[in-house]
């Protein structure tokens, strides 16, 4: 790229190169728009048999996917959407408090040297591929976490989402949420940390000068300042959790219901994991249906990310 202009020695040549370069830069900018549009269009095109095709065949294909449990596209994609949102939301709830805690620890508690080291450790979490999280979750975490879920089901079973009996082995939404929480933790942590570090020094010092303890200073100065940042960080984390495939595929025991019993197995499935598991054995029409569900997932994540960015934009103005 950078060596393209060596021959441009004359002024006229320089001008042409200038124009070409500008054109290329503009084209690449526009290419982003085109690519996103192409993603939507290609998916829509391949999913078209679902809308414009023979509906009787669609019904047959969906029935064969689900073993007669769903008879049209919305009955099929509805529970999947519910499962996707349920898994991602539970992961976010687990991850949010821990992430904010770590971000505060790095920004306001740990000494500088330690804080840098800790940031690296958190980045390390982000660097580990999802398939390895899946391996670890499916082999190590699932048997290890059962006593804990059983304890939760015994003592907190009166809360509907924790209704027992806890499935054993716990290939459940709860376990998947734990793994996803670890996976989205680095995103939320690093974004919140960046925001917390930008808290006006004067406000912090004013709070401390008035005799506030460190926690009171954080409550008075840091958290209100970082609120929108934390919200958008969580939205981005949510976006990541919504689209996660491998960890869900390798841990969750799938089902197609609207149940929110986190500790029971075979209740929910996410769109992404469903695509990955059904895809290898699907025929042409089946693939169309799966791509249709992929389109739904695309729209959901698009919306979540869009909202997150809008919040950031508003906050930064």
């Amino acid at each position, binding site marked *: 790229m950078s060596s393209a202009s060596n021959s441009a020695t004359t002024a006229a040549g320089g001008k042409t190169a200038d124009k070409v370069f500008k054109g290329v830069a503009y084209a690449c900018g526009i290419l982003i728009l085109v690519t996103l549009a192409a993603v939507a269009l290609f998916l829509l095109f391949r999913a078209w048999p679902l809308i414009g095709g023979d509906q009787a065949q669609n019904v047959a294909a969906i029935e064969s996917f689900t073993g007669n449990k769903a008879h049209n596209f919305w009955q099929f994609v509805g529970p999947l959407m519910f499962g996707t949102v349920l898994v991602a939301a539970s992961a976010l709830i687990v991850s949010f408090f821990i992430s904010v805690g770590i971000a505060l620890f790095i920004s306001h508690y740990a000494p500088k040297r330690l804080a840098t080291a800790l940031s690296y450790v958190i980045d390390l979490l982000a660097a580990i591929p999802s398939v390895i999280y899946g391996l670890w979750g499916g082999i190590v975490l699932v048997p290890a976490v059962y006593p804990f879920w059983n304890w939760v089901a015994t003592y907190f079973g009166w809360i509907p989402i924790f209704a027992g009996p806890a499935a054993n082995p716990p290939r459940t939404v709860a376990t998947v949420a734990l793994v996803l929480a670890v996976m989205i933790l680095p995103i939320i942590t690093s974004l919140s940390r960046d925001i917390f570090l930008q808290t006006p020094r004067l406000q912090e010092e004013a709070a401390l000068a008035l005799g506030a303890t460190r926690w009171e200073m954080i409550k008075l100065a840091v958290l209100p300042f970082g609120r929108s940042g934390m919200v958008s960080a969580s939205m981005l984390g949510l976006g990541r959790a919504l689209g996660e495939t491998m960890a869900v595929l390798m841990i969750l025991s799938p089902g197609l219901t609207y149940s929110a019993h986190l500790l029971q197995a*075979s209740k929910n499935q996410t769109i992404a994991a469903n695509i990955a598991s059904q895809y290898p054995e699907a025929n042409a029409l089946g693939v169309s249906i799966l791509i249709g569900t992929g389109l739904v997932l695309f729209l959901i994540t698009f919306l979540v990310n869009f909202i997150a960015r809008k919040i950031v934009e508003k906050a930064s103005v």
Partner: protein
Amino acid sequence: MLMVRSEFQLLIARNQAVTAAIIRYEGMRIMRKSMLVRSMAVVSGLAMMAALAACGDNNASSDSTASTDTTEKISGEFSGAGASSQKSAVEAWIAGYQGNNPDAKISYNPSGSGAGVASFLTGAVAWAGSDASLSDDEVSQSKSVCASDATAFEVPVYISPIAIVFNLDGISGKDKHLNLDGETIAKIFDGKITKWNDDAIKSQNSDVDLPDTDITVVHRSDKSGTTKNFLKYVKDVAADAWSYDVGENWPNEVGQGASGTDGVINTVSQADGTIGYADASKAGDLGTIAVKVGEEYVPYSAEAAAKVVDASPLDDTATGDNRIVVKLDHNTTASGAYPVVLVSYDVVCPAYKDAATAKFVKSWLTYVTSEEGQQVAADNAGSAPLSDTMRSKVNESIAAIKTE
């Protein structure tokens, strides 16, 4: 990349002098040349790696007793697709077949029975593996891919017992069995019996001290021929206790699902009190159920599975030339027969548009169904070898493949 943002900002100081930039600019011109040299080194390094890569192949194992057949060697690239249950057997067959025909390159895509037959019907693969026999519709469709208006046929190549595996602290283990009859099995898998010390289980296992553990049923969450064959057994022996239709999907909401044979085994072995069904070759260290046949309880074994196939008639509703479809008799009372069995077929054409493919398919099927091929599968996939009577029938069908 958001996390590296603050680092980036450190990278370049904002108040950089113009002179420094110009000096840098000159310096960069010199550096660029060395970068070019370096990148060339990288490229050539990659090219060397590429040359090495071809050596990655493991030589085909020579320990298989290569039969000294005098038939001409097959060469070329051929592919099949279909049932994932056959996967480990097909891997062993490919290795054995290539031992005899070193120039043949064969691949098998374990995409599932339905997908395999579908791609066979488009002509994309030479043969398909299927856990189910062809439907009449599929037979008539096959005219378009097979040459000279012939219709496809299937022959059994892989007979494997389906083990009902369980994991129960202190009771389960390698080669340990619990005795159950069909009706009890049906009730367990329908969620009607929920404790291991239920009277129905106790009465059949008087010598075992059964604990008060909850039963967790583990079934396949994906479409599967194993599920279909297991459900057929349950429906045949305990129609009263099993109200669901037979299909490739698990019909009820009991227990938890797991993807693939290995997913079921993995899930069963991860918790106390689980029970599931899976291809017997993967049962490993789990306990298995001895199923009631007649008046005795029979644990799974390759021989016991072969017995029930021999005791079963051929399906005479399968219309079409050369087809061999076993109609499993799950209610058999033959002594020592294990009735929960998966019979998997290879689907082929009697005539191919391409002569090389026809030759390959014929020699492939001959090898697969031969005594040697069946023994290779038994060793590596724990399947039951075809009996001699079955083999002679299969050979008649194979002989019908036209290679001219």
